[in-house]
């Protein structure tokens, strides 16, 4: 059957005219998706090689517990872009408000690293995945116990000794007030122990989440926060069958960022408590020591850092960061080779010719001391280029 083209065209035009205006009107997509990230390239020179096998990341990101004791005196140079990040946000309208979801990856997963001869594997690692709706946050992100604005601007991926930055699963409720914010959170419990032989144990059978409350005062001069945490440390029959020792402990932290002349600022964190283990300095100390009878002894830890940032010009600035962490370990239970004190010093010069680009060099000095008095040092020079997109 032959159909007249003019007839077909007329039918098409009539059909278009009959479609209700709401359908042919420009559709406003209620979903907002944005993508971004940063490219970070590091060149790192270590006076003491702390990396060991290729899969270790200690040569690339400062980990105080990996400072060699005694010193190895083997220098090394490494380059990597593992601290590059990609992120996505998805915002969906929900009632009068919106549901926002955030996911972020870096390339620091070292589990599948190759030997690094012809190809260095940089497997993606999920840093954040969380959703926020009104005042509620659910997912994996930074602990509520930390104040992110107190984190200094440094090249090193892990930060100074005494910082509180860890990421894990949580549910948090915050309230915005005229003077600042309050937070209440339940976060993933994960007890870490030092055994009587000095090795680290993770039970992975914790039953009660960590309970955290925080108050943050914000003003034009900066902000100060105070956080309180309650944790149950649970041994769950790990050492001796039938002995399920558990202890409650507490920790407190005060931190902030205070502005001085122009953009100069002081950032600080000070924390104290007997359940700080996994929260401070990337678990440099464990939460507790556990004896051969399965009994728990909580470890008192004090840690913190102080950072002053001076802006030489509107694009050139330096930060001097000093951090320390000390644990009161019971050497009647654990060997004298366990860690007692860590310190770190960062000094850098960063330049941002444009906002999205930062070039910088940084000197890092790390110190580690054991209960028996033996110690080790690490010096590191790190060149970094960061481009945000």
């Amino acid at each position, binding site marked *: 059957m032959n159909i007249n083209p003019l007839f077909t065209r007329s039918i098409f035009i009539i059909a278009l005219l009959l479609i209700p205006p709401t359908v042919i009107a420009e559709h406003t997509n209620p979903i907002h998706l944005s993508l971004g990230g940063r490219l970070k390239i590091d060149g790192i020179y270590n006076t003491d090689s702390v990396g060991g096998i290729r899969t270790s990341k200690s040569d690339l990101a400062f980990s105080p517990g990996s400072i060699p004791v005694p010193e190895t005196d083997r220098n090394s140079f490494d380059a990597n872009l593992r601290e590059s990040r990609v*992120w996505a*946000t998805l915002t969906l309208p929900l009632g009068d408000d919106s549901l926002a979801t*955030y996911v972020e990856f870096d390339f620091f997963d070292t589990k599948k690293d190759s030997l690094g001869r012809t190809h260095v594997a940089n497997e993606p690692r999920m840093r954040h995945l969380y959703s926020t709706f009104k005042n509620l946050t659910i997912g994996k992100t*930074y602990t509520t116990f930390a104040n*992110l*604005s107190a*984190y200094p601007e440094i090249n090193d991926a892990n930060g100074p000794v005494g910082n509180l930055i860890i990421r894990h699963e949580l549910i948090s409720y915050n309230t915005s007030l005229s003077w600042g914010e309050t937070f209440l959170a339940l976060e993933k419990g994960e007890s870490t122990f030092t055994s009587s032989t000095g090795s680290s144990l993770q039970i992975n059978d914790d039953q009660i989440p960590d309970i955290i409350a925080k108050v943050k005062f914000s003003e*034009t001069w900066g902000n100060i926060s105070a956080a309180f945490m309650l944790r149950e440390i649970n041994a769950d029959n790990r050492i001796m069958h039938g002995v399920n020792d558990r202890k409650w402990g507490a920790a407190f932290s005060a931190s902030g960022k205070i502005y001085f002349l122009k*953009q100069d600022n002081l950032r600080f964190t000070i924390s104290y408590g007997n359940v700080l283990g996994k929260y401070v300095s990337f678990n440099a100390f464990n939460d507790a020591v556990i004896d051969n009878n399965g009994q728990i002894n909580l470890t008192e830890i004090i840690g913190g850092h102080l950072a002053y940032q001076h802006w030489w010009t509107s694009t050139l600035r330096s930060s001097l960061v000093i951090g320390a962490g000390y644990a009161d370990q019971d050497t009647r239970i654990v060997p004298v080779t366990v860690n007692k004190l860590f310190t770190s010093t960062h000094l850098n010069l960063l330049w941002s010719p444009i906002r999205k680009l930062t070039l910088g060099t940084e000197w890092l000095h790390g110190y580690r001391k054991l209960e028996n008095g033996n110690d080790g040092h690490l010096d590191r020079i790190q060149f970094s280029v960061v481009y945000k997109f």
Partner: protein
Amino acid sequence: MRYYKSFLKLALILSTSTVLFANDDAIKLETGKTLLEAIHNDEIRSIMRQLNTLAYEREYTELELRKLNKRQVKLLVKEAAALADTTANLTNITSFKNLDDETQLAFNAMVNQLQNISEELRNATENNHQDEIDTAYIKLQETCNTCHTLFREE
């Protein structure tokens, strides 16, 4: 055109300075403050400082940065609005009306300039255009500094 504007600006500054130096009476508000002390941008400066450093924060997630930016921008809108209102009301006070015509004229010119920039800042912050906020803020700083040089009592 650029030199023409600069010349006009210089002429305004010179003429105003002559008027001021010839006048021993300080331009005072009823509160005892000098006139231009009423127009202060310390708050705006602090807010801009926080906005600037946010751009270099390394550990905040994008969602948190947006939230913090939004909060600072809201404060900026509020301060810009207050600044515009203050400048608009300054010419109504008694001590201002007692000034001679030339001083009033010079001051009015500066007030108009400040009002325009405050509006510019308000629009930029309401639309959340960071580049426009930066430009308006630089203009605001320049205007404030010029005004302070001319009118503020040391």
